């Protein structure tokens, strides 16, 4: 009975949400609602049947507390994730049904069109599928199937080297935002906090990833552009300087981590601290203080990426038309205004490209730097999402939980890429016109 109610609720919600959204895009309200109801029904069944409607299991007791404007409620984490999952799958179904409907209408119009030109193929053309088959098969075997397996693994209690597995619903996901042991508490505009979380370990790890991404991208790009501008000046030996500046990019993450560990080491042994002591200053706990450790990781990673960024920005600066700069000068723009209003818009496609690559690096490729520099410490201060996945999946061999984290990482990357294309893509100027 709860399962039927749950499905009906999903259907109703799907009808409301999808109906409203399709109405906004110009479709009819009733049609949208009907489509939403079907999608909600199918989405609920598609998501919940493999999960055996486990989110409704009264035995499930993974909760967290949420305070909004002083009101505290207890949220069942498994049910919440289950509901979000149903909504996402329902939305995917709605999109798919809508796409199919459009496709069917368009095809009907073509087939039954009276003035179809002679020679127009009106039957279903399978040839594209034949040509695509090798790629599709490759992707299916090596990408989609493992990805689907990962989703399945995320719902299991599973360990490397142990033959048995056990279904554990969405506990692996729920344990990321709460725990059976710790009372995770999230505050939104409550208790004097705009936003605050207690005992939310994964959220802290997530925060580290965001911190690294924002600052690595910022530092590596601001410095990259600045150095590129300097390196573009007509000075003697400019080519040698440019070549030398690219070198950090050729260094692997492991070497970067080790070099910075030697450079920044605490306890008086690091080169920088030795120098500070020599000059009469107190050593800085670069690797043993949580905030300094984060700064150290950002410095090491940004240095690693700097060479590549400089290379791209030098090329970008050379592509800025001289006439535009001259025209701006004649109009009275000083060097800073020319840089801000002419150079930056002209190199914006390059900035977009570099930011995109740097962001991916910050999220996915930091493991070697972090592992060799701070090992994720102190107290997890430099543990990011990828380090955590590797630690849990490889070092602890708890692959069910690691799979759940991988899926979260996957969703984050899709979201980030989408946002980046939406937000930054609009501000990019391609061409001089």
């Amino acid at each position, binding site marked *: 009975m709860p399962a039927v109610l749950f499905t009906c609720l999903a259907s109703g919600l799907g009808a409301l949400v999808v109906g409203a959204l399709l109405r906004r895009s110009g479709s009819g309200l009733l049609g949208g609602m009907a489509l939403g109801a079907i999608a909600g029904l199918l989405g609920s069944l598609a998501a919940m049947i493999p999960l055996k409607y486990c989110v409704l299991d009264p035995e499930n007791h993974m909760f967290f507390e949420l305070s909004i404007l002083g009101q505290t409620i207890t949220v069942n984490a498994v049910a919440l994730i289950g509901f979000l999952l149903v909504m996402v799958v329902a939305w995917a179904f709605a999109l798919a049904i809508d796409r199919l409907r459009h496709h069917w209408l368009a095809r009907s119009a073509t087939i039954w069109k009276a003035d179809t030109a002679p020679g127009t193929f009106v039957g279903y053309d399978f040839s594209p599928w034949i040509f695509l088959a090798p790629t599709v098969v490759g992707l299916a075997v090596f990408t989609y199937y493992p990805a689907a397996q990962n989703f399945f693994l995320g719902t299991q209690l599973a360990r*490397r080297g142990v033959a048995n597995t056990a279904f554990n619903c969405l506990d692996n996901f729920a344990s990321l935002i709460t725990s*059976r*042991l710790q009372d995770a508490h999230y505050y939104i505009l409550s208790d004097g906090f705009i936003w605050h979380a207690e005992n939310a370990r994964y959220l802290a790890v997530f925060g580290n990833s965001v911190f690294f991404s924002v600052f690595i991208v910022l530092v590596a790009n601001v410095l990259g552009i600045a150095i590129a501008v300097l390196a573009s000046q007509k000075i003697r030996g400019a080519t040698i300087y440019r070549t030398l500046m690219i070198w950090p990019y050729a260094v692997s993450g492991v070497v970067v981590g080790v070099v910075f*560990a030697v450079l920044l080491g605490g306890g008086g042994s690091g080169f920088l601290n030795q120098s500070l002591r020599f000059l009469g200053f107190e050593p800085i706990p670069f690797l043993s203080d949580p905030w300094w450790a984060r700064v150290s990781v950002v410095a090491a990673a940004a240095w690693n990426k700097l060479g590549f960024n400089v290379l791209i920005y030098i090329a970008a600066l050379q592509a800025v038309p001289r006439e535009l700069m001259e025209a701006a000068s004649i109009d009275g723009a000083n060097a800073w205004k020319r840089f801000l209003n002419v150079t930056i818009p002209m190199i914006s496609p390059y900035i977009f490209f570099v930011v995109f690559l740097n962001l991916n690096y910050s999220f996915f490729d930091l493991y070697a730097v972090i592992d060799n520099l701070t*090992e994720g410490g102190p107290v997890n201060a430099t543990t990011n999402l990828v380090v955590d996945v590797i630690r849990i999946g490889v070092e602890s061999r708890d692959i069910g939980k690691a799979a759940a984290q991988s899926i979260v990482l996957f969703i984050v990357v899709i979201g980030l890429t989408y946002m980046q294309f939406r937000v930054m893509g609009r501000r990019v100027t391609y061409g001089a016109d």
Partner: protein
Amino acid sequence: MKKVITVLVLMLVLAPPPTLTLAQDDDRVTIRFWHRWGNVTWLPEVVEPSFEAAFPQYDLELRVMDNYNHAYEVYILAQEQGDPPELLQGTSSNTQAPRDTGFFKPLYEAIGDRTEINGIPVRLDEIVGPAAIFYQLDGEYYELPWNASTPIVFANMDLLVEAGVAEDVNDFAAIPSTWAEVHEACALIVDRFDDVDCINFGASGWYFENAMAMQGAFMANNENGRDGCVTEALFNSQEAVDYLAWHKSLEDAGFWVDYGRSEYNITWANSKLAMHMTSSAAARGRVEIGEGNGFTVGADRMPFNQDVDYVGNTVGGGMILLTDGLDPEVEEGALTFLMFLLEPENMANWHKSTGYIPVTQSGFDYLEAEGWFDENPTFAVANHQLAESARVPQTAGAIFGSFAQVYQMYREVFQNILRNDADIQESLDRLKAEADLLIEEYNLLVPCEE
């Protein structure tokens, strides 16, 4: 023509040397041993040729892995692909999980009641102290203890003399051996030097495990799992709180300093660190750095709680696992190699190359007869410490499948106590609760057989 010559030259350069093909002998039985000792040249340069010379019917293939975790992970993959090596080096912090996989054959089953294999005596009954009970269940060996170590304190004796802790550089007895003595010595050292750190050791599970054993405390219920299945961790006992309170007091006083990866080597070499508590297996490295930088390296036991009776230390390091399901002649070859490693001369050379204790009494006697320990007293400390350790379940180490995973959690909890002043009892209660959950999950997948 130029192109043809270039191609020919390339073919000549890139072609494998003829000796490689000539060296193959199809009749030989291949014994593959995956280990993590890439930096110990003694294995490929001495052991491999001497084993193959003594037993020409075997072809020993050594493969170096990055670390224990990597070795085990790759081994599981090799098992899944149906081509595992015959022998794998495992770690002391991951004993039960490999046993539960069914991939490995207990050593006692493979050896049976034989007293020699291929003419080499079976020396399992000679294995010393806690190294013996650590890898035994009900008195039977599951794996071969090999690279066994124990935590000891290495000291820069020159610094200790200068600080007034020791009278001369050979006064190893002056190295603090109790928790209180560490405080006293550190107070003198910090007072004497502005830029010397007193003591460094890892905030890790191994020292915690040893501190518990030294105080006679169990890590898990049912006598560390030796008298029944582990269903509960006992990390929040008074003994655990006392150890962390001591560690925290060292940190608060500025006596204990946290270093990053490998940083202690630089600090140690520069005589900026007075004492370093680490694995006895680091003896070779510690001493060589001292010799290279002109200071004397001393060593003494891991400091213990002076307020309770000393029970004993536990071993760390690793062991060698034998793959199950091998052809009889291959298994015989693998066992031959294992027994070859336990030969007194090999045991002695292994110890000299690293600092790992000679796990057999005959290996120890061989070294003693040579006068090795008289000449190198630093290397004798680990054996003495383990010889003094009682053979009781507390020093045998806890056995439960998720032990390695729990090990990962220690570091996080300890750092939280040391760095963020987290309450010790509360942190340990939480650690215990999380460990209990992992034990419960593991027992769900691998039901415990009493």
